[in-house]
């Protein structure tokens, strides 16, 4: 009875998918729950799941103590800014690699990826000195530059994969019709690759939003984004889990909502070209 097997298989797959999904989501759920607990409930042994006195006190404290909107705005400027500049550089680069590959294109791609293999702390001091001398320390422009550069290899790689799926004949046809290089990329290639570009953009915004090494080390008071906002609520001496959870929830909420609304594009983009 193939039908019964299919149904059972479907049920098993559903259960597995839900289990994996819940496992992945659990830390976020736990953070959100903890943010509504008192500090004493947050560290209670055994842990309390839902049976605790719900309180908004942590959110009030966090609001009073820090300027959330300044950090939030810094995060928005840094992540969106670095993504847009990154795309502007990566689209032509990926076009060249996908449609007019040279002998060394593969090597160039690998070399770009290899820059991701260096531990960031290894170049912290040189970059810090460069930033100091150019006055970029604790500025949003400085962070936009750094995050653009560190995420560029990923953007180029993702776009390259999408562009390769677009038949070269279409671009040839455009050229036959007299389209120049600029109009070919702008009016033919880009609209066709919109799902890929959108998902690259979203993924890059998420990566830049969550980046917590350079954003912590190159900022002080003015350009500090939400990562610094979270880091200010951890304490070596004293209970802090509930307040830290409230700060974390506030920091991830915008990106979580963005991800929620754009999940279709994300999934479509990430699986683009995966199924032939």
């Amino acid at each position: 009875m193939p039908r019964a097997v299919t149904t059972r298989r479907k049920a098993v797959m559903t259960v597995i998918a839900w289990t994996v999904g819940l496992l992945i989501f659990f830390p976020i759920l736990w953070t959100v729950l903890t943010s509504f607990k008192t500090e004493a409930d947050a560290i209670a042994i055994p842990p309390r799941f839902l049976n605790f006195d719900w309180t908004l006190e942590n959110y009030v404290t966090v609001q009073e103590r820090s300027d959330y909107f300044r950090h939030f705005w810094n995060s928005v400027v840094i992540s969106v800014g670095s993504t847009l500049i990154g795309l502007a550089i990566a689209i032509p680069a990926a076009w060249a690699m996908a449609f007019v590959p040279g002998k060394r294109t593969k090597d160039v791609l690998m070399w770009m990826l290899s820059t991701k293999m260096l531990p960031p702390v290894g170049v912290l001091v040189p970059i810090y000195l460069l930033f100091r001398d150019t006055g970029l320390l604790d500025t949003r422009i400085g962070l936009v530059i750094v995050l653009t550069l560190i995420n560029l290899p990923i953007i180029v790689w993702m776009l390259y994969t999408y562009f390769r799926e677009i038949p070269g004949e279409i671009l040839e046809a455009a050229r036959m019709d007299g389209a120049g290089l600029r109009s070919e990329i702008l009016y033919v290639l880009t609209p066709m690759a919109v799902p890929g570009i959108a998902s690259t953009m979203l993924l890059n915004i998420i990566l830049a939003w969550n980046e917590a090494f350079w954003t912590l080390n190159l900022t002080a008071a003015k350009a500090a984004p939400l990562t610094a906002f979270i880091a200010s609520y951890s304490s070596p001496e004293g209970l802090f889990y509930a307040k830290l959870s409230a700060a974390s929830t506030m920091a991830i909420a915008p990106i979580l909502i963005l991800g929620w609304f754009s999940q279709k594009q994300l999934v479509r983009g990430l699986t683009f070209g995966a199924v032939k």
Partner: protein
Amino acid sequence: MSTTLRALLGATALCAAGGIAAAQENVTLTIATVNNGDMIRMQALASDFTEKHPNIELEWVTLEENVLRQRVTTDIATKGGQYDVMTIGTYEVPIWGAQDWLVPLNDLPAEYDVDDLLPAIRDGLTVDGNLYAAPFYGESSMVMYRTDLMEAAGLEMPEAPTWDFIKEAAAAMTDKDAEVYGICLRGKAGWGENMAFLTAMANSYGARWFDEEWNAQFDSPEWKATLDDYLMLMNEYGPPGAANNGFNENLALFQQGKCGMWIDATVAASFVTNPEDSTVADKVGFALAPDNGLGKRGNWLWAWSLGIPAGSQKIDAAKEFIAWATSKEYTAMVAEKEGWANVPPGTRQSLYDNPEYQKVPFAQMTLDSINAADPTQPTVDPVPYTGVQFVAIPEFQGIGTAVGQQFAAALAGQSTAEQALSNAQALTTREMTRAGYPK
């Protein structure tokens, strides 16, 4: 010279002059600090300072301790000039002071009364006779214990207990079925975690990190005795999973009534006696950290202090701020607004002479503990370094954490005490030789 160029130059000069005038008038100080209760209180009360100094604005950068340390170290080592006031500890001050990375604070005003600072704390912040940071709050470590459990065990905690008494009391108080553990100690690996406790404990056993020639000493019988006793106490009478416990985990256990004794920072006293968070608030007693009759106790010394990096352009304003934050007047203001128990402790003799403050249950024991520590002569045998629960050399963070991992592994049962000590000896010797220390 063309008219345009002349006009441009004139405008630039005017702007520059205006800029200088503005700098004299309005200054923004960037202050890097940690998220500890006393520091957060200082931020809330800082309007008192800005009201008295309307030309000085304050910007706060609050970070987690390890992030802060990495961040300010990068900045000060590269003279980045991002901060005007840094919150640093007794570990950084001797190293940075010797490098001339900090501005000396020898010219604080007379009313600041620098002689009022507790000698142990002041010595820890002084290099070659120069005071390089002003203490905001100081702490040592002591025994906090449950008076009800001690009484039920038929024992009485002396004011200055020995390690033998601690072992006896831990055995008598442990009731694993009721989830009451005789002793809770730090187990989490890290130079400021388990190694802070173990280094201080080792001092009272006559052990030391290095001899006078900078040779590692983990192969000494004193270190063996220290680690054996620590492991015995934790395995027999400690809570399960102790290799993951740091200050906050033990604080939670103690507040929930699961620890008979806890030897840790004196600053914990205000947490465990606070009835809002602690279920045992009215049943806590305090005693000096234990000893073995060798002349040194197992207590550490730390002071979160405010210093000015040499790269700051606003030294005068920064000094004004530091003089305000660490003054007697600031203490009086906290007492008036938040009560004596919330005053930053452990920096000034005058605070402990105050009859109001003497009523705080842990005040005298905190002072006695701080006075019992000597950062310039921390061990029984002479050593070439300063620091009670650390060695004030730049390499210590790395070495201390690596050794801490060996000891945490022994606590978790992944290796024996002998293996842990022999590995600690090997890795310390290797790193110190590489850094060129042993003579």
